[in-house]
């Protein structure tokens, strides 16, 4: 059993790490966004893999929730990015730092 799930988990970890590193090091808001999606889907992959391994649907249900949340997040997030891009002519995530003041 363990052997069938391990590769998925490893893949999931790799994807998550790539996503996390991307969020931390990239400045383009679109790329950061994509990296966030990557992390969410890495989690989805792990959830579905465990769901299959455990033989119940809990994981898959959770994955659906994640997808719904991700879709909603994309809607809001892209709208924000668009607005910032319009005012600042830049999609850098460092730009909204000005909001602190």
């Amino acid at each position, binding site marked *: 059993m363990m052997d069938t799930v391990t590769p998925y988990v490893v893949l999931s970890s790799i994807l998550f790490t790539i996503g996390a590193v991307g969020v931390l090091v990239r400045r383009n808001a679109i790329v950061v966004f994509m990296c966030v999606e990557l992390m969410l889907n890495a989690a989805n992959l792990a959830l579905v893999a465990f769901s299959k391994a455990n033989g119940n649907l809990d994981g898959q249900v959770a994955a659906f929730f994640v997808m719904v949340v991700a879709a909603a997040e994309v809607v809001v997030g892209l709208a924000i990015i668009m607005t910032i891009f319009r005012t600042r002519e830049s999609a850098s995530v*460092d730009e909204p730092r*000005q909001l602190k003041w």
Partner: protein
Amino acid sequence: MVSPVEATGVFHLLWVVVALPLTGATVLLIGRPLAPAAFDRFGHWLAVGLSSLSFVLSLVLFVVDLGRDEGQRQVVQHVYQWFQTGHLDVGMDLLYDPLSALFLLLITGVGSLIHLYSVGYMAHDPRRTRFFAYLNLFVAAMLMLVLAENYLGLFLGWEGVGLASYLLIGFWQARPSAAAAAKKAFVMNRVGDMGISMAIALAFVTFGSTSFTVISHAAGQASDGRMTALGLLLLLGACGKSAQVPLQAWLLDAMEGPTPVSALIHAATMVTAGVYLIVRSGFVFDLSDAARTAVVVVAVVTLLWGAFIGCVKDDIKKVLAGSTMSQIGYMMLGAGLGPAGYAFAIFHLLTHGFFKANMFLGAGSVMHGMDDDVNMKHYGALARFMPVTFLTFAMGYLAIIGFPGFSGFWSKDKIIEAAWDYHWYVGVLALIGAGITAFYMTRLMLLTFFGQRRWDVDGSRPPDWHPHESPRIMTGPLVVLAALSILGGLLLLGSWISDWLAPVVGEPEHHEGAPPAWLMSVFAVIVVAVGVATAWAYVGRRPVAPGLTRFLPVPHVEDVVVPPGLQLTRGLLTTDKFAVDGLLSGGPVALAAVAGEFRKAQNGYVRSYALSVLGGTVVVALALLVVNW
């Protein structure tokens, strides 16, 4: 021992003695603003009348008491319950016994005479009504002090006379010196009052009551240490009110007040309250030799110190003030000698009340004639122009130096004799004090009434100017007081005063082997004669040097006490500012500093927030792993 019987008959009126002058004070203070014209014309007569009525009543009580058996002479009247809290149950009880009887007569008698004198002395003062209101207030408070049956009632009177003294010293409040003197007297008295209030607390803790009756019966059961502490605290209080070393400095400045005030409060009555306190608390001092010795030491130091002050002042009132300190020192000495001296302390207190009030009023009369100049070096040769003042003053003078036959001779002699019985060197010091007294009083007499005319101080007086005798209303009281100064010694006739006071203070015991009384009197007279002769040689035969008399620059008490006190206060302030405030406000300041550091993490970069979130997640994950291992 205080074992009073319930008040009957005329003693039901005991409270009226206090109430009369109190009413006077209230009516005058409230009525003056309502009807200024009427009170300015008649207000002072109301005060004189009420004070005299109080005297008449005291006299009636005294005569009735005189007719009673010895065991019936202590009378207590419960007026009302003052307050009750926890175990402390204090009644407004008045105690009339031979001791307070004498005080009542002194306070109301001399007080009324001084009221009468003030009518003349303060005639031109626009605030005369207020002055008389304060005088009445003083009389009421002093009567409360000597009539109270418990320490709290006594304390009420004690603070009352302190207040009246403050108000009257500073009566001419527009003068900065008078305002400062009043404040000084008040503050220094506060030190003594601290002693009294702690003594009252200690008495209550020890005996569960503040009543003289209860404490005097239970005194034997308390430990020696307690009694000594009680005695020393009471002595501290007595030192404050009676201007004894080390709390004596206020009395000289108190002379800023109007002269009748100096006579009534700062010579005849209030300053003797300390002696009253010690004699009244005899049951405490009887049980503690240490406390009694402390009283004797304070008394001897003060009687010499006061006499020394009397020698070096040029201000006539300050000489008399120094003399007052010195004479109260004699009374304290008597009180410190125990049953052997209590009665004589009170005897000297009475005669001193007569002759010192006489001399102060005489000094006031001189000042009245000399346009309020107080410097004796500006007087001289006044005997011819103020004959009544001179003659009455001379009676007081002869009394205070102890000229044979005059009242002071009998009273001071008895104290010196008792002091000699106590220990020979106390006796010698008391004798030396008597010699110095003779010196400075003779100096005062010579400078004021004899010698050259030195009136023309700055050339402003015309050559034919001369002082006038004071009006009758002022010389009348002088004559009465002069008569009392001469005849006061009659109280000793057949040792009446000792027998009269015996129920309160016990019988004076007489030591065997002591030098006979007549020998002591001879010694005293010789010492006094030496003092007078020295003064004659030093002052009488030489021209008076202008300028201030200087002699051994001795630091004032306030110069010794105040700078360290200021330093202490500054130190406390610094401690408060840096240690206490630092502790309290330092915490928040440190917190703000730390928060300032943390604030830098909020840099606005999404990436750094993301890193924190990730870091946190990793930490949580690791923690879960560790916990679930």
